[in-house]
């Protein structure tokens, strides 16, 4: 082939860029940026950021810019597949959609009629959870969740329970005003472009960034201060900062007394709030009258210091208990510094800097507002310190409490929902009591009795049978992990394989690579998926998997429903789900087919619409039994969750001129397309800060349909639901934990944030396994998706284990360049590299670069398979035995979040050369391999 250029060679100043621009939403990662897709001759020519879009404001990351290579990837599945060889062999035949639906219905219909719980439906990195959960609820199985349990549920749940929202989708720093930005455990974690845009703004005006991360890469590389903390000790570090602030009186007492439960009176005996007998509302001691009063009574000024005697019991304000707890010298910087891998002086410096910026550089906006008690304020006062945190602190077995500690820190500084601080994005703030409670009421042939997931507020809300067994296959909402708000997708396969708590029939998964990088203990999970019983039948009898690409997991399913690429599909980024709102606006968005599929594939949600109809699920069929929605696009426009409230908020009502609430509007999708693929509704100026307590915000939220009634609340410094769990463990109340969990519940479910040693460290010999091992996500890759992308894989196609210089030298790793890395669970062989900008007790590598041979249409000798590796092989979903006859979960005891980052390892020199180990045999690709060369754009 000769590509010697002709017409294109000359420097033409004004070439035509494309025939047409179609604006949709990116899906190269989870961040949902707006993109302008340029099409020429029906092909995608160029993708750039949409300047008008609230998320990315025109910019686009490496992933988004590589969308062409994803859209045309050779790994795309082409048609529904039926397995013809043994599981894992990769032998399939292409079948029609009708046959695929018939097979699925033949498995699922009998289950619905007899035992709906035998369907486990887990949807991975799903952006349509309000829809997929609706399907699961209509089917009647309690076994539904997405991937939050192995991602960042600690961050989300700790945020919701503490203050009605967390980071990323829940809120963002006030990028235009903050003067000090502090990040914890953030690599390329969400959200991608907004954080980079924000950092750029801070850098442009010289604002400071403090990065807390064992590894100095990415955002931490540009941070002005790098705090190279030892993994798993962030909570201790944060509590030391709180100690320093309290000791100096540098907390915002006015804010705390007005907007938090700092003044709530707590019984010294039972640790529960003193409540008004008539309303059940918590009481404070009013400084003006010296008498107890309901906390939200207008004019009441809570006393944060005085104790109160009532009916023979003593009550103390929550703040007093908090202050006494953290003033304990055990939390002093000098007491924790070694443990954190820091010096006490640096911890003190950070505390002093936080206090200086928060209180000496106060921001005042001349914006009057009215609080929920009717009091008018003539200004908005801001503390310009903002935080952001992600998986680095949440993926530990002490992650929930660590995230709680961080939220308490920002609340003590008075920097939440104020100018310059952290701001919620609609539909947040939303306190835990405003969320549903979890449901698992199964009635054969009927829908589930309510939403699957939610926020328990008391032991009575757990999903436990009379005999103590779990109602859900993943054991979410049990005493092992009572606040597992996102479910535990990472436990589904091992529990289903073990038949604990019960056997299932069909495992139905979407968009989660559970046979590879999304599971702990990958090799063992593969064994479970292929394991047979005495009769030769698979232990997990049926597996349905939906994916757009030839991922590792495809090979282990019996039936494949091929999804489209992101440019070929409808989606709604819905206010009912995980929207794209900003602190100053509500917003939602769509994807629409800017390119037509050239394969026999279907957007997964449309396939689920079809399947739901064929199963006759309520909501999916009309009264006469006919299919209700033609496809997902039809559902997006015409489904109403509550009267007038549907998946999309923009252009509702008969004439398409209502926003938020309104009847379905037939031209709604065209209105979105005409507007660039999104809708945005701005929050009034007066409503933009103090949202939980701001009358104008509450009015606005009701008006556009976020809630049906005003729901002001105060932040939970002291989390009473945790105390209720502890009390149950102490023997109080009708719902009791099993005895073997009582001590752990008492120790870990403290109503004020606590730090405890990560579980794995308490079980393994720390001298034998002296190092912490972590992964980070590269900025240009999203989970396993990047490797099939011809452009992105040229940036990273193999990963090395980065080893601190001292360890590298002592181990003699320079000699061979390869090492054995061993945990209590397994051993892998990996290539290594030296790194100094790294906590000296930590090794790390890039996440999800290692691939199984044969997957993703890569050649069998692709570096991803020969030199790339996963740390997952070293991590088990269970902790090593500790001699009590039980196996304890390797997860957070509050939420069940997978404790990926608790991993301890040792490292030894290995013989030179690959392949990395374990080396799995190749899979047969159902779609063949990619072409040898690419010259994309030669047609244009």
């Amino acid at each position, binding site marked *: 082939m000769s*590509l*010697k*250029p002709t017409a294109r*060679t000359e*420097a033409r*100043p004004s*070439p035509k*860029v494309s025939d047409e621009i179609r604006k949709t939403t990116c899906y190269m990662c989870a961040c949902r940026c707006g993109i302008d897709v340029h099409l020429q001759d029906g092909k995608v020519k160029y*993708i750039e950021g949409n*300047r008008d879009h609230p998320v*990315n404001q025109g*910019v*686009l990351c490496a992933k*988004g*810019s590589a969308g062409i290579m994803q859209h045309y990837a050779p790994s795309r599945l082409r048609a529904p597949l039926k397995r013809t060889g043994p599981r894992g062999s990769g032998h399939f035949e292409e079948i029609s959609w009708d046959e695929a639906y018939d097979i699925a219905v033949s498995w699922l219909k009998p289950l619905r009629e007899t035992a709906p719980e035998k369907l486990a439906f887990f949807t991975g990195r799903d952006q349509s959870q309000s829809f997929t959960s609706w399907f699961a609820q209509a089917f009647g199985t309690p076994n539904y969740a997405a991937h939050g349990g192995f991602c960042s549920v600690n961050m989300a749940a700790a945020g919701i329970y503490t203050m009605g929202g967390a980071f990323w989708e829940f809120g963002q720093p006030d990028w235009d005003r903050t003067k000090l930005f502090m990040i914890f455990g953030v690599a390329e974690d969400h959200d991608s472009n907004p954080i*980079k*845009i924000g*950092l*750029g*703004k801070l*850098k442009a005006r010289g604002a400071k960034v403090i990065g807390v991360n064992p590894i*100095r890469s990415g*955002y931490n*590389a*540009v941070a002005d*201060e*790098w705090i190279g903390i030892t993994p798993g000790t962030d909570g201790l570090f944060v509590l030391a900062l709180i100690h*320093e602030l*309290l*000791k*100096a*009186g540098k907390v915002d*007492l006015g804010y705390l007394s007005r907007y938090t439960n700092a003044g709530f009176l707590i019984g010294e005996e039972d640790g529960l709030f003193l409540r008004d007998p008539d309303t059940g509302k918590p009481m404070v001691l009013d400084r003006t009258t010296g008498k107890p009063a309901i906390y939200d009574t207008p004019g009441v000024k809570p006393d*944060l*210091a005085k104790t109160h005697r009532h009916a023979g019991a003593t009550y103390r304000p929550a703040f*007093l208990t908090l*202050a*006494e707890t953290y*003033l304990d010298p055990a939390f002093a910087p000098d007491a924790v510094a070694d443990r954190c891998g820091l010096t006490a002086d*640096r911890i003190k*410096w*950070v505390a*002093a800097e936080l206090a200086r910026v928060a209180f000496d550089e106060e921001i005042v906006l001349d914006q009057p507002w009215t609080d929920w008690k009717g009091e008018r304020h003539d200004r908005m006062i801001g503390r310009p310190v903002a935080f952001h945190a992600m998986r680095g602190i949440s993926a530990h077995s002490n992650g929930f409490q660590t995230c709680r500690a961080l939220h308490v820190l920002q609340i003590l500084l008075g920097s939440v929902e104020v100018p310059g601080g952290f701001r919620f994005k609609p539909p947040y703030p939303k306190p835990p009591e405003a969320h549903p409670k979890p449901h698992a009421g199964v009635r054969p042939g009927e829908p589930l009795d309510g939403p699957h997931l939610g926020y328990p507020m008391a032991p009575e809300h757990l999903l436990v049978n009379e005999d103590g067994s779990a109602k859900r296959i993943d054991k979410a909402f049990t005493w092992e992990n009572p606040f597992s708000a996102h479910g535990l997708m990472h436990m589904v396969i091992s529990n289903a394989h073990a038949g604990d708590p019960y056997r299932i029939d069909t495992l139905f998964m979407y968009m989660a690579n559970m046979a590879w990088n999304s599971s702990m203990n990958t090799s063992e999970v593969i064994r479970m998926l292929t394991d047979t019983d005495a009769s030769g039948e698979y232990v997990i009898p049926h597996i349905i998997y939906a994916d757009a690409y030839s991922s590792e997991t495809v090979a282990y399913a019996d039936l494949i429903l091929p999804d489209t690429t992101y440019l070929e599909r409808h989606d709604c980024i819905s206010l009912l789900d995980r929207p794209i709102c900003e602190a100053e606006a509500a917003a939602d968005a769509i994807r629409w087919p800017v390119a037509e599929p050239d394969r026999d594939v279907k957007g997964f949600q449309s396939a689920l619409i079809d399947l739901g109809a064929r199963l006759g699920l309520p909501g999916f069929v009309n009264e006469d039994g006919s299919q209700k929605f033609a496809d997902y696009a039809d559902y997006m426009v015409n489904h109403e969750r509550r009267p007038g409230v549907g998946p999309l908020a923009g252009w509702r009502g008969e004439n398409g001129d209502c926003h938020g609430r309104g009847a379905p509007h037939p031209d709604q999708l065209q209105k979105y397309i005409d507007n660039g693929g999104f809708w945005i509704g701005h929050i009034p100026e007066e409503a933009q800060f103090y949202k939980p307590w701001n009358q104008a915000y509450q009015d606005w939220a009701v008006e556009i349909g976020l809630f049906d009634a005003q729901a002001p609340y105060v932040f939970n410094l002291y989390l009473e639901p945790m105390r209720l769990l502890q009390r149950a463990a102490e023997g109080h109340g009708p719902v009791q934990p099993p005895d073997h969990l009582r001590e752990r519940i008492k120790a870990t479910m403290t109503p004020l944030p606590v730090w405890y040693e990560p579980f794995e460290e308490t079980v393994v010999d720390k001298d034998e396994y002296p190092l912490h091992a972590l992964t980070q996500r590269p*900025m240009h890759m999203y989970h396993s998706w990047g490797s099939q992308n011809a452009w992105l*894989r*040229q*940036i990273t196609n193999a990963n090395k284990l980065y080893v601190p210089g001292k360890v590298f030298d002592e181990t003699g790793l320079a000699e061979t360049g390869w090492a054995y890395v061993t945990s209590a669970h397994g051993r892998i062989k990996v290539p290594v590299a030296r790194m100094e900008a790294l906590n000296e007790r930590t090794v790390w590598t890039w996440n999800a670069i290692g691939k199984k041979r044969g997957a993703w249409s*890569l050649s069998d000798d*692709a570096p991803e398979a*020969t030199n790339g590796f996963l740390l997952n092989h070293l991590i088990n979903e269970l902790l090593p035995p500790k001699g009590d006859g039980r196996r304890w979960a390797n997860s957070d005891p509050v939420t069940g979040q997978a404790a990926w980052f608790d991993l301890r390892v040792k490292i030894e020199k290995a013989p030179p050369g690959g392949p990395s180990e374990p080396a799995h045999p190749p899979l047969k690709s159902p779609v063949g*391999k*990619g*072409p*040898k*060369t*690419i*010259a*994309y754009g*030669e047609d*244009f």
Partner: protein
Amino acid sequence: MTSLPEKTGKKLGLVIDLDTCVGCHACVVNCKEWNTSNYGAPLSDMDAYGSNPVGTFLNRVHSYEVTPDTGLAQTVHFPKSCLHCEDAPCVTVCPTGASYKRVEDGIVLVNEDDCMGCGLCAWACPYGARELDQLAGVMKKCTLCVDRIYNDNIPEEDRVPACVRTCPAGARHFGDFADPDSPVSRLTAERGGMELMPEQGTKPVNRYLPPRQKDASLSEIKALGGDIEEPKGLLAWLDKALEAI
């Protein structure tokens, strides 16, 4: 050999802020997708799904670790593309005249029709900023998106190089260094913008803004030094502080 213009009207180029660049590769990939479909031959990818995938890129990000004698090690992300040198050795070494520097704006370009793929220019460039496309057999390099910056078919605000348009952190700036009042000239002056390897005598147009001083907390002793200790001091402080609210 090929001659350089004595003077160019404009001196177009980039300012790249190393204090802000997070090393995300957005510029690398957006450059690739724009340029593979526009000026000159496509930017090909050899062995695209195989064991040694190597393609042509006009812009790459390198990451370096800097370990000072005292203080903490640092990571610096360093995007690198053609610096459009005033005294460009890649031009003067070209045997066919294919490489040239434009008199009107100083952009260094390759006329691919005249390029025979000898590779001398790539050898002459001290920055390693040129790549010979293995499929087309012609030399590829940054064009400063010459087909964007004057392009009447795209909105005026988008008439900047693709790398600048896409950079999420705003670490890349495009402009005219011949104008001392241009934003790029002012930014260079304010932040101590540096030439890359000035000792090579190539007089590069692009500038790099150096990383700011880091880790002040290592040398600066600062502590709140409070003396509130429970329980008596705490109650006294609280009483006083609450009274003031």
